[in-house]
């Protein structure tokens, strides 16, 4: 199965939560769609609208920004900043006629492997409905 660029999902994963949850999903052998590409970041607050938009520019069909639970960010508000930037990016997408739901902010704890898999699967479903 060769994959074109037009159904990739870029998942920016905070190294304290989502990256660990993804690892846990791996250890539990939970299968999720192959088209996910995880990019590790020190905090969801590192992710900028620039990074999200470039992903779409380069052909990504969906972007997930995954960080710690609200109130549990080691950098206090990094995940809240990310949430705002995701909202902003979604509005930019809408402005150019794309579905803003293709970019999503997700909060989870480092052990939440099922949630990781669920949100990835949900996004994969969403981008199929073109």
């Amino acid at each position, binding site marked *: 199965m060769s994959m074109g660029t037009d159904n990739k999902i870029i998942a920016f994963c905070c190294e*304290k*939560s989502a990256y*660990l949850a993804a690892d*846990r999903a791996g*250890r*539990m052998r939970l299968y999720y769609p192959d088209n996910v590409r995880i990019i590790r970041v020190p905090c969801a607050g590192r992710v900028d609208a620039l990074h999200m938009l470039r992903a779409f520019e380069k052909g990504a069909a969906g972007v997930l920004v995954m960080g*710690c*639970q*609200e*109130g*549990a960010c080691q950098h206090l508000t990094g995940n809240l900043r990310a949430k705002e930037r995701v909202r902003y990016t979604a509005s930019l997408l809408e402005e150019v006629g794309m579905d803003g739901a293709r970019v999503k902010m997700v*909060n*989870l*704890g*480092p*052990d*939440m*492997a*099922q*949630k990781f898999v*669920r949100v990835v699967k949900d996004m994969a479903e969403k981008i199929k409905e073109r």
Partner: protein
Amino acid sequence: MNKSIAVIGGGASGITSALELANSGFRVYLIEREAAIGGQAASFCCKATDICTKCSVCLIPEKLNEVAVHPKISVLTDSTVAGLSGKAGDFEVEVLRKPQYIALERCVACGMCAGVCPTEPKASRSPSPDAVPYCYVIDETRCLRLRGEKCNLCQGTCPTNAIDFDREPERKELSVSAIIVATGFEVFNAREIGSLGYGRYPNILTGLDLERIFKDQGSLKLPSNGKEARRIAFIQCVGSRNEGHGYCSQVCCKYAMRFARLIKYQNPDTQVTIFYIDLQTAGKGFAEFYDECRGVIRFIRGVPVEILETSGELEVRFENISEGKVERETFDLVTLSVGITPRKDSWSLARVLGINLGDHGFFDTKEPFNSIETNVEGIFLAGTCQGPKDIPDSIAHGVAAAEGAMGVLEKCK
């Protein structure tokens, strides 16, 4: 006098003590009974709704990894303390280690051994996804080879030659200046209160069961039929504040409320009721959370006396204190908020180390308001083995014990 310290127990407080000491330049031997460190907390789940509820479970994985990679910490899993001699500044700790048929330093967790293992369930057990070290372990009770039969499949398949069935139990002598006991707790065995039906009816769970269920599955379904629960009851003070356990376990009201809130968040139509005596709502940041809970959870001041199953539902008979009468209500799932009790094997470690047990069965401290020193100089206590605590308090206590242990080293200089 050497600059080493032994920490007995690799749970929340033990790993904290180990890290504090190792980061201050001391060598630490972390002696852990099980095949993996992490203790109870490593099996607990994140209880966030759309915001963090401060359960603090997420503090553990990072610490475990730090311990596993720290150059100054030697983790001895499958190990117990068999003997002790010497005194503060100069102890000799005798450690007994179960044979490591799969060498931890060689196992890369590729899983090929389990792939060829002929038994069902497999004798070569995959580690739990949270296990640190993340390595396969041979279950002696299932392994054909260890039961005397001819089988060499895993040893032959292992690509790193990690498996060797000729390994024997090891006895090690550790020279340390101080010892920290951080052996943790057991939850109250709810079967001891027969009238509450635990073990008899499938839809009666304990708080510990909920931790595992949420961690593995992410949501709660009725054990009996896998459907959603419509009416859930939590019963507080099961095994606390009673005859035999005359103390508050400190964690149950909070975990019950966090679970209750999480369940309501996932299934807003589910009715959740908490039966309590005195609701423990103190603690940083808990007041707001409690206010939120009040809006969506029924709180009934009452002590359930009996739970019976009638036509598939659980009938809880309780004394409704506010109304002053005995009532009955039906639920489809009941969670018993079991408390923290001392480990039943504490007495044996107490005997080996020469330390005392207190009135409630936890390890005793030398004097009131000194929660880390035992009657033996150089032996300190950390975490719930000294008394009930939640995760942040256990971590803080682990730091305190480390500080105490450092005092011994400073004194001996």
